[in-house]
């Protein structure tokens, strides 16, 4: 993106009645779309050539739900011509970026005055410079291969559980006190199948 002098930025919000136009109440809306330099290269579109990176030539600016469409100049400026006074909505369509729609009030009483506010977060704009709120990543990122991810997968968990049962359980039994073990076995024998009463809360013996 070409560097823009501060002087130009000051002129952004000027919206003069379109020069010598036939109708009196037609105005121009001028603004600028700014995509941060650093973002352009990794616009979530990858480098494999599935889509063009978020180039300025693929950005569209839409007024009132597509009633007027305009495109960006190389420096990011855009303008809508012959717009009646009133409240309008500007949307920016750029693959890879999320832009908030902008409410633009073109005043009829005070020609040349344009007020703008982002509708997503109600933030007022002192000048009509539209910047993406965030980047949009359309693809899931493949996690690089790791032992953890393999272990976390259902099959890995199954194997892990089986290993645990196969190796840890005998160890647990081994470490048990032989006395206690015998008692437990006896108890189980005496009980046979667990009775209903033992399952009920409060119905447990000892």
């Amino acid at each position, binding site marked *: 993106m070409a560097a823009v002098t501060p002087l130009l930025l000051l002129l952004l919000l000027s919206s003069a009645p*379109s*020069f*010598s*136009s*036939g109708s009196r109440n037609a105005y*121009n809306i001028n603004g600028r779309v700014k995509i941060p330099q650093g973002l352009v290269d990794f616009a*979530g*579109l*990858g480098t*494999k050539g*599935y*889509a063009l990176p978020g*180039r*300025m*030539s693929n950005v*569209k600016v*839409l007024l*009132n*739900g*597509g*009633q*007027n*469409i*305009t*495109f*960006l*100049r*190389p420096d990011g400026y855009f*303008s809508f*011509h*012959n717009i*009646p006074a*009133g*409240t*309008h*909505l500007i*949307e920016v*369509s*750029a*693959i*890879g970026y*999320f832009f908030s*729609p902008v*409410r633009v009030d073109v005043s009829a009483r005070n020609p040349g005055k344009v007020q703008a506010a982002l*509708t*997503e977060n109600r933030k007022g704009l002192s000048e009509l410079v539209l910047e993406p709120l965030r980047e949009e*990543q*359309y*693809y*899931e*990122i*493949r996690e*690089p*291969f790791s032992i953890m991810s393999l272990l*976390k997968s*259902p*099959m890995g*968990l199954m194997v892990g*559980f089986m290993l*645990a049962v196969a190796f840890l359980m005998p160890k647990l039994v081994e470490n048990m006190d032989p006395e206690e073990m015998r008692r437990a076995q006896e108890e189980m024998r005496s009980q046979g199948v667990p009775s209903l009463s033992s399952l009920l809360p409060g119905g447990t013996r000892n």
Partner: protein
Amino acid sequence: MAIMSFIFVFFFFSSLQPILSLYEDQVGLMDWHQQYIGKVKQAVFHTHKTGRKRVVASTEQNIIATLDLRSGEIFWRHVLGPNDVVDGIDIALGKYVITLSSGGSILRAWNLPDGQMVWESSLHGPKHSKSLLLTTNLIIEKDNSLIVFSNGRLNAVSCIDGEVLWKKDFEEESLEVQQVIQPPGSDFIYVVGFAASSQFEMYKINAKNGELLKHESTAFSGRFSGEVSLVSSETVVALDSTGSILLTISFHNGKISSQQTPVSNLLEDSPGLAIIIHSSVTGIFAIKTDAATIFIRVIGEGKLEVVEKTNHETVVSDALSISEGQQAFALVQHAGRNIHLTVKPAHDWDSSLLKESIKMDQQRGFVHKVFINNYIRTDRSHGFRALIVMEDHSLLLLQQGAIVWSREDGLASIIDVTTSELPVEKAGVSVAKVELNLFEWLKGHVLKLKGTLMLATPEDIAAIQYMRLKSSEKSKMTRDHNGFRKLLIALTRAGKLFALHTGDGRIVWSHLLQSLHKSESCRQPIGLNLHQWQVPHHHALDENPSVLVVGRCGPSSDALGVLSLVDSYTGKEFSSLRLVHSVAQVIPLPYTDSTEQRLHLLIDADKLAHLYPKTPEAIDIFQSEFSNVYWYSIDDDNGIIKGYALKTKCSGNVADEFCFDSRELWSIVLPSESEKIITTATRNLNEAVHTQAKLIADQDVMYKYISSNLLFVATVAPKASGEIGSVTPEESWLVVYLIDTVTGRVLHRMTHHGSQGPVQAVLSENWVVYHYFNLRAHRYEMSVIEIYDQSRADNKDVWKLVVGNHNLTSPVSSYSRAEVITKSQSYFFTHSLKAITVTLTVKGITSKQLLIGTIGDQVLALDKRFLDPRRSVNPTQAEREEGIIPLTDSLPIIPQSYITHSLRVEGLQSIITVAAKLESTTLVFAHGLDLFFTHYAPSRTYDSLTEDFSYALLLITIVALVAAIFVTWILSQRKELQDRWR
């Protein structure tokens, strides 16, 4: 036990992440995307430089695009707004594409290599007029300049930055400027036109500063009509309004002299009304009459001579200057299956530079336009290439007697789409070209495994990707088990039917419909919609399925209708008929005859119902269901919705037993001063609903009100039907209705104050979701209304069910006045909408997602759970478990749930969902200028293994387990042995 529960929790969390989206390397596996530009209006070649040869085209769909001249691929493309019609295009300075659009008020320059807009200027003028764009090599103040005439003003614009160098108004009220001419090598411009239709005006203007040098005019006794044809830089030919007198007007050196020649002098037989064909060939012009196209040469001093009279459809190109002072033009004529391309020099009619005959597909119809370009052959002679636009809107490049490439740009204007099943695979017939053997299969899976373990080399990755994309499985011409392979049948505005394979998007067949062909009796045929006529299963499997194409002969609703029946396997039109009545509505009835032909009821403009097919069997079936047929009509202009039922046979003078009279049952009249209908929505007839009851958190049951006769209507204040921002919130409102179309009962009515359209709505099961603009918040909103049947609510009492005192078995009928309750909620949504639909699965078990076509031409999937009227800020624990999401004021946009991922479906018009046989999956087809197709599983593919499931990993695991069992067995035996020895 603790371990088990821990594992369950772990499982639960690991499966909670909603990964519905794609990995980047999965692009193209299940989806395909095709780009089109539409019917070409004007084309300019760019072949001077040694770089890539291009052609720049503007189309009727307001697109400006550059195509590769070698392959026809799109380099770049811009879709202008709906009102931004392109008036003219040209190339300036060899690097900029100049477009004049919006009735001549916007002039833009685009960088030729990459399509970046370089400058834009807005041109205004005193009055509306014809727009003309003229590129010159004039240099004004060191800048190359363009001359633009638009809105009654002549502008000279700099090519470099779009600055207006000078302007000159032509304010005279009645002046109609026809041509702006710059004689080659001069520095003045002629502006010629008619004033008050009977006076010829000529202005000579200094091209350097816009100064008026001379103004001459001459009166003519008759009236001028239409176009003028330029036969030299200082002579024009015009026709009078009767079409019988030709005027040759020359303004050499600013002196006007005219000559009148009656057309009948040139031709022996009276030709009838003639019109001038616009062309720019020096010395020759063409007029077209009903019967023929006549080429006339101007031989000095206004003398005319007929050089050729052709009776075929003939198309002429503009002149192309091939060398110093020499011009050539192309003629294309039809002769049976061939077209003849002739390139002639302008000065000598009898000779020709090129004569070629090319075999042309009959399904492309006539040639509509031709553009030519020349190149120098190695032997220094001139070669020509021609770009032709056909009747079906396709674009072809002809060179050396052959078609170099063709583009099916008719697909940029699809009117309606339906689907058809493919033939069943027969035993013994192998359809796949390459059947993989076991070794290759295993090799493929080992490669895949390497890919998942990230051990693959870049070559391996490329091989995997190729293997996945080129899977022969998905493009077979037979039915598959999962129902993914189907034919998409699309009707285009040109009256052509295309069948696309869902596997890879290729065109299986295409057919230019005879019934939608222009003829004496049907001057302006237009296609309306497609219906499935015959869907054979069970006992009529030998029949091929067929589709019904409905059209009418003209734009008004009382024009006569036309029907065509097309075989969906072969594309043959086996029946085509012109109806004697109009078609206002087509109702597919839920009855089929013994050959599985579906009965259709066509309602004409006089509210008479006509039954098709016209067979005795159909009438028998229909008679028995006679009293169950209801329909409704919506009159948008007057705000009246009416319901009808059938009465008797037609009482016309002709005994037509397939025609029925209707009677009006009910009508809803909306107050026209406060409400205007803007949108209606109904349920998709193919939608299956799995369960009527909805279990809610506290073990309670709600019964959905499910009726196929539900109609959603949205109205706005008439003042607010315009664009956003034209009204204040106080004078704008949106009213929505839910209406039962059998009884006319309004089930629900709701008003949104301070809101306005456009409204997009989708109705499914027992809910409707609609999108509109809230003027107070100045944001878009989406609302949901769910409708529940209260009269069934008592059934949840267990005792009633036991005693049998319930009404669950009573049929749902529109006659019983069900007590309904509705729940509703609204949320903000960021984007404007172009289309909205809902996923459709075969049994309706899978949870639903909304598919939203945004203004950026992307398709976003949004879970229906986000639009649930029971959402609250703090859901209780029970509600959370049920899956209710805490309430937020706006709907989330998750970039990964764009099903079009990083693609755009330019000019998106509608999204069509079709159920696959696999319950989890919906087939989604989005069309506009582009086509996009994908499989979408709203709750993931829970009923089949995913595509990247690694069979090899499974095999290896099993082998490893078996090996481990053996090893442990041997080990344990050894240990036992050792224990015994001890």
